[in-house]
């Protein structure tokens, strides 16, 4: 054993020496920290691809003639939230398939490299690294969960890969102080959804006392905080209590009894389906909460909630993206393709339309900035692509008319409130 020790000691010394003088050139990506967005340099060098690509800080994606344009996705397709990610993935793929039917973009077919963000910081990091390492990836649709979004946005921005998220709603991702240059999203900001439900509660329901419950996820905790602040600020209501549960909890009666003691008129619990259904059932059974309004958010808007909550679900309000897109693109074109792709007859979750729009925005941007080389190779300058996406305005998407601001918020902030009645979500607010 003594011999083994000497070797490790010598090795340690050599290692420290070498670590000190590691040159930074080893990696292909530029070593500068999170690169500030440099404006695209393509304008003045005309459309000579080599010059444009050389001028672009992150270079170009080179797609040889006949090769497909590859887009990456980083969505949660394993763990308990798999429905959320799978739903978005189908939405994005439908956008690609529709383009391919019309001959693809600039004659190149669209293909996907699907990674799993595992709805965690570790998963987001691994997925982003895998996509960034492949130079063929032009842009990324992802991530599903905000927790995965934070590290993924940093990694993709450092490599100059544009990433558009269909379902990240955490405000910090598009907060000017912490916004990563190559990150945008078509999902609405939680501030919007929380405020919308507060406004609905005040004006429509005339509620003045409310309690909130979250399940420890960044999404739910953020939503209930915004709701509480807006409820007090906007209509002078009082918050009788802010409580929390664990996603694995099954007994809510204890919590509901303590909430009942503060006699709120409305309970806002923007948590996910499993906990939401149980809480709804047990709230109906709790003494003192007989005539309390129950309100949730888009995390509970799913088919499984209706079946598991059963009769107790009737009369529950849920906020969420305004899904009643009457336009025929959603009903007659998107949904049939979606059902055919997923082999199911109901959408798995609520963010498929946002993924569809995100993919279309990226594909349009590629079409706009791509340059043809004389040998037929397509060059897509990365910074130009990013700027084209951020320049999107009044884009007629399925989720509304989308305009991206300089911090990456592209969602059309149309939030609607639905009332659950006889086994379905009926949109009741706003009326227009």
């Amino acid at each position, binding site marked *: 054993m003594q011999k083994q020790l000497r070797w*490790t000691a010598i090795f340690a010394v050599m290692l420290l020496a070498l*670590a000190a003088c590691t040159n930074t050139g080893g990696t292909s990506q530029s070593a500068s920290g999170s690169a500030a967005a440099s404006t695209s340099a393509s304008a003045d060098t005309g459309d000579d691809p080599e010059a444009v690509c050389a001028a672009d800080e992150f270079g170009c994606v080179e797609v040889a003639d006949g090769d497909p344009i590859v887009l990456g996705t980083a969505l949660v397709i394993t763990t308990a939230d798999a429905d959320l990610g799978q739903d978005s993935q189908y939405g994005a793929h439908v956008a690609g398939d529709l383009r391919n039917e019309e001959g693809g973009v600039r004659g190149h077919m669209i293909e996907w490299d699907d990674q799993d963000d595992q709805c965690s910081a570790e998963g987001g990091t691994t997925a982003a690294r895998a996509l960034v390492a492949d130079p063929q990836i032009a842009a990324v649709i992802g991530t599903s969960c905000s927790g995965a979004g934070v590290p993924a946005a940093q990694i993709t921005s450092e490599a100059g890969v544009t990433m558009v998220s269909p379902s990240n709603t955490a405000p910090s991702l598009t907060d000017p102080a912490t916004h990563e240059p190559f990150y945008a999203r078509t999902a609405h900001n939680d501030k919007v959804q929380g405020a919308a439900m507060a406004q609905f509660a005040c004006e429509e329901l005339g509620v003045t006392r409310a309690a909130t419950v979250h399940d420890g996820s960044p999404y739910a905790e953020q939503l209930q905080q915004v709701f509480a602040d807006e409820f007090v600020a906007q209509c002078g209501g009082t918050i009788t209590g802010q409580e929390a549960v664990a996603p694995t909890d099954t007994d809510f009666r204890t919590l509901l009894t303590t909430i009942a003691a503060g006699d709120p008129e409305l309970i806002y619990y923007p948590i996910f389906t499993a906990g939401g259904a149980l809480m709804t059932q047990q709230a109906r059974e709790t003494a003192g909460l007989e005539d309390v309004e129950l309100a949730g958010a888009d995390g509970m808007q799913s088919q499984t909630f209706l079946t598991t909550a059963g009769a107790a679900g009737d009369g529950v309000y849920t906020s969420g993206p305004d899904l009643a897109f009457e336009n025929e693109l959603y009903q007659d074109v998107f949904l049939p393709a979606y059902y055919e792709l997923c082999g199911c007859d109901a959408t798995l979750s609520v963010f498929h339309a946002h993924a569809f729009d995100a993919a279309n925005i990226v594909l349009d941007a590629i079409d706009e900035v791509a340059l043809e080389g004389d040998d037929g190779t397509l060059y897509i300058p990365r910074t130009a692509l990013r700027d084209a996406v951020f320049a999107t305005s009044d884009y007629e998407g399925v989720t509304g008319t989308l305009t991206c601001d300089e911090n990456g918020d592209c969602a059309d902030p149309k939030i609607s409130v639905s009332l659950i009645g006889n086994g379905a979500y009926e949109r009741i607010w706003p009326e227009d």
Partner: protein
Amino acid sequence: MNDTMLGRFYRRAAGLGLLGTLGAVYVALIGIVERFEPRNIVTGYLTLGLLTAALVVFVTAYRATEPPHSWGIGPPPRQHVLGAGVLAAVIGAAGVALFLVLNRALPLDAVLVNANDRMSEILGLGLEFPAGALALLGAGLAFGVAAGGLRLLAPRFRGPLIAAVVAVMLVSLMEPFMRVVLLQLGQNAISGFFYQSGGLTVPGAIIVAGAVLAIGLANSLRGEAVRERVAEMPADQRRGIQIALFVVGIVFLLVLPQLIGSFLSEVVGTVGLYILMGLGLNIVVGYAGLLDLGYVAFFAIGAYATAILTSPVSVLGWGLSFWVAIPIVMLIAALSGLIIGAPVLRLRGDYLAIVTLGIGEIVRILLLSDALRPWTGGAQGILQVPPPEFADIDFFQPQNLYYPILAFVVLGAFVAISLANSRVGRAWNAMREDEDVAAATGINITNYKLLAFSLGAVFGCIAGAFLAVKLGSIFPHNLNLLVSITVLSLIILGGMGSIPGVIVGAFVLVGLPELLREFAEYRLLIYGAVLIVMMLWRPEGLIPSAQRKRELREHEDDEDQWAHQTGVPTAMPAVERPGP
């Protein structure tokens, strides 16, 4: 060989055949056959999905050809070996065929999620119903003959043959790793020749199998001679070879990240974190014999302490540099090890396991709770944890963060080895074997347990610190019990108390699932299976430390079982028997 012996031999073979069926059906029903199907082993011919089911039947058939321990009078005659193999394999295949019939008749997929048509199609070798079943029986026959043949082969040939087959599978599974490495080295041609859509090409497979077979044969035929020549080689010449190997090892380790690109460096970095934790838990469980199921508590404390100290937006907002924060984190680690360890270290075995599990959960919930949100950020976690700075190297890139992690892993291994061979290591060994007698020979049990616990805590916290820096942000949700169980599984697989064991365990149980996404979904199922199988088949682990091999090799020396029994059980504190 009289009839009753023969009867028993064949009955046993039939039983193993049934076991083969159960195994194959189990593998199909949990969806491995369907999920692994897209991954080719030999493109166009053999896929991983079908291979796993087939492997189960083949292994049970091969087991059937082996005479039971109590046989005693030499191997059974040739034809019976073949007969037993065929019987087992055919029963196995017939069972699977029966299951396919059942699956068509009954709506099993209403209950069992994976009992769908796609799975039946794969298991039925892609053929329609009657043909599929017949094909299965044929395959069973072939497997039986192969199993019997393999058993009859002289060991000299059998070893290399098995090695060749395993090599083909491993090289094929390593496809994502090799493709990126070859890409990085600009060797697209070679990559194109060997690999195609995720698996080995036929010529590629043949070359790999041929090469391994040749090496194996050479080794078994002239291996002895080579080993002798090396043995009598003069000491300094042998030392020369050792130094050469060592230098090659270092150079490889230092060049590795540039070789494998950023994604694989990220994976190797994660494996490095788990090696660090493995080294720490190895001291607690492997050396001192304290089964700690709450090791994630120290991982979390390290991560949060670093995040709070270094992030400019944390409650302290000091924004210290990583290198200044690390010693403070190590101090916090030692302290938390003492505070958590002190009250619980008098407990033994099961009780200590469950208490540490409880403490791990308490720490996780508190970090997540609104009560501590002002300090730990609650559900929002702590963001903007800056990477370490050193001579303007961008440590956010995994290729660069790899080096500090490697440095701490080497340091950790050095500390662990030094302790193992010292007076402290002997005291831990003695304590693990018999606590009362260790006290009676002058060892202060509580102090040495606390020492092991605190050292383990320091390792865990350093790994946590690197996690915080690697992700750039810390959320409490993934710092849960599964981390503790992952670390426990990797030291059990590698071998409790063995440093090389921890390293191998980490690469297999943490590295592999990151590379092969199919495995990721079954990661925890595989961990559970690893813990059970290792304890039943090889409790001392894959690369056991000498001390552990003597300790856990129970059944070899049966005669002193009784002596072992008479020793006073060190198990439970004296407790009251059930019933009034």
